[in-house]
């Protein structure tokens, strides 16, 4: 092109003037900084500060001055309630992978075809996901209420004593996990449905003509075909488990006797409400490392090559 040829022969100052003229540089300087500034101020900087504060014993007032090295991390590592919180997080992951995802997959296989009935069921199953976690937590704290709730009614009609599930050390977390499955299986189901709809119908048809049973088609045609979707949904289940907070607060608030904490409720309870900023920041750093480890590990082993 003529213009390109002439501009290449122009002196550098002229080229700069031209590129300013068509707004290339000014576009970069106008359009990019707002995002960079916001992101740096409210995401990256706090993250870095988490790391910094975690080496101090600090209540958040004045500048952090009481440097304690790794003491916060040592205290966390030795805290039995933190062990419980991590254990609970692992339990959520296990329930997500072993109960929630198979349930979601089974339902997706039943209703992935576009029919009016299926659309209704799809809608119903997705509703819990769109509710706020706090609302879901409150609803279920009513369901499990030993005096008023549905479990109370059921227990009564079976002639049993009142059940206070959420106040029971052994059962409270089972209740929490029930709520989590209820809340999120629809999300995973939707991912599978979207994937299942992209399985070519003739593949299924030819399998059927060759005499494959329904389950064999599921096993050898459909599931292999939607493997990327399953991998992604498992990733969300794991990352989601690391973040559970909202649901716990109305349900149990971490109780009874700190049996139902997750990493984030632990951070909130022992870091923020007691203004142990250093300690809480250290929990934040641990959570960060866990999330990054999961992400990197996952990319390495499951998302090789295919950009899901």
């Amino acid at each position: 092109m003529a213009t390109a040829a002439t501009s290449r022969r122009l002196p550098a100052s002229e080229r700069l003037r031209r590129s300013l003229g068509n707004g290339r540089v000014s576009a970069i300087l106008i359009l990019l900084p707002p995002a960079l500034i916001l992101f740096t101020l409210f995401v990256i900087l706090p993250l870095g500060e988490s790391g910094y504060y975690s080496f101090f014993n600090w209540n958040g007032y004045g500048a952090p001055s009481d440097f304690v090295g790794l003491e916060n991390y040592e205290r966390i590592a030795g805290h039995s309630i933190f062990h419980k919180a991590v254990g609970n997080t692992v339990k959520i992951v296990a329930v997500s992978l072993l109960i929630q995802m198979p349930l979601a997959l089974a339902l997706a296989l039943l209703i992935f075809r576009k029919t009016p009935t299926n659309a209704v069921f799809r809608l119903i199953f997705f509703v819990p996901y769109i509710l706020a976690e706090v609302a879901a937590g409150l609803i279920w704290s009513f369901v499990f209420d030993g005096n008023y709730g549905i479990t109370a009614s059921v227990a009564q009609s079976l002639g049993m004593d009142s059940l206070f599930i959420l106040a029971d050390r052994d059962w409270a977390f089972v209740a929490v996990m029930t709520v989590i499955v209820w809340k999120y299986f629809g999300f995973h189901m939707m991912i599978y449905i979207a994937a299942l709809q992209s399985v070519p119908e003739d593949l299924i048809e030819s399998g059927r003509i060759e005499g494959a049973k329904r389950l064999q088609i599921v096993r050898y045609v459909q599931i292999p075909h939607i493997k990327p979707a399953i991998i992604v949904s498992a990733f969300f289940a794991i990352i989601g488990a690391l973040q559970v907070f909202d649901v716990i607060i109305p349900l149990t608030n971490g109780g009874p006797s700190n049996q139902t904490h997750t990493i984030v409720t632990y951070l909130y309870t022992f870091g923020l409400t007691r203004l142990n900023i250093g300690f809480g920041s250290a929990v934040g750093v641990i959570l960060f490392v866990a999330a990054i480890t999961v992400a990197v590990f996952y990319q390495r082993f499951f998302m090789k090559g295919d950009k899901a």
Partner: protein
Amino acid sequence: MTRGHLLRNILRVALLCLVASFVLAPMVATVLGGFKTNAEIRTNAFALPASWNWEFYGSIVSDPAFWRYLGNSMLISSVAVTLTLIVGAAAAYVFAQIKFFGSRMLFSYLLLGLMFPFATAILPLFIKVRDVGLLDTWWAVILPQTAFSLSLAILLFRTFFEQLPKELFEAAYIDGCGYVRFFWRFTLPLSAPILATVGVFVFVQSWNNFLLPLVVLNSREVFTWPLGMMQFRGEYVTEWNRTLAFVTLTLVPAIVFFLAAQKYIVAGLTGGAVKG
């Protein structure tokens, strides 16, 4: 249809109905509970109310605090969405349209937000917000929320902008239209579908957010609805019917919004999630 086929279909629908009742039962009990006296909830949490008492719903609807909570949430979510769309689209536009030194690096930098949960930085965020005097203001929720939404927004926007026809820009450019003007005049209007998807996603996140407002908002004047709801629950610990009525009234806008924006919500939450 063969008999085996029919039988299997009946079995299928029966199974689906079973799961549907597990999903719906708690919500139905919640809606009905708002009409019952507490004594009635106690004896039967699940039956239709003996008489439909509208007073619990009425007292909440006529309480200005309830509307203030919703209004605060609406304001925060709307501003967060607007900011995310403008700021995110502007940055994504630069990455999609202009090649410059360091562009890939800055892009990866802005995507870091996809890697870790919001909660990791919540304490320093609290300190920062407090130190700049934003505690107890709407901005304390809006700005961090926007910042955390940017990563996904920029990722999705860039992919979309790159697919817009290149000839368009060349034509406009010959007519003397610069980059910034082109962004406002052409890119944004042509990107309505992706703007809607991301907008709905950010709105839902912001509307339902609990942890951040819980940490940075203290006075009831600025409470968002989840905080207001927990406050209300705390005040009426023993009166489940009032709490249930309150919860029901917050479910209604969520479900209406979902039905209206279903297409974008499903696309944003599953499709967007899969791409992320």
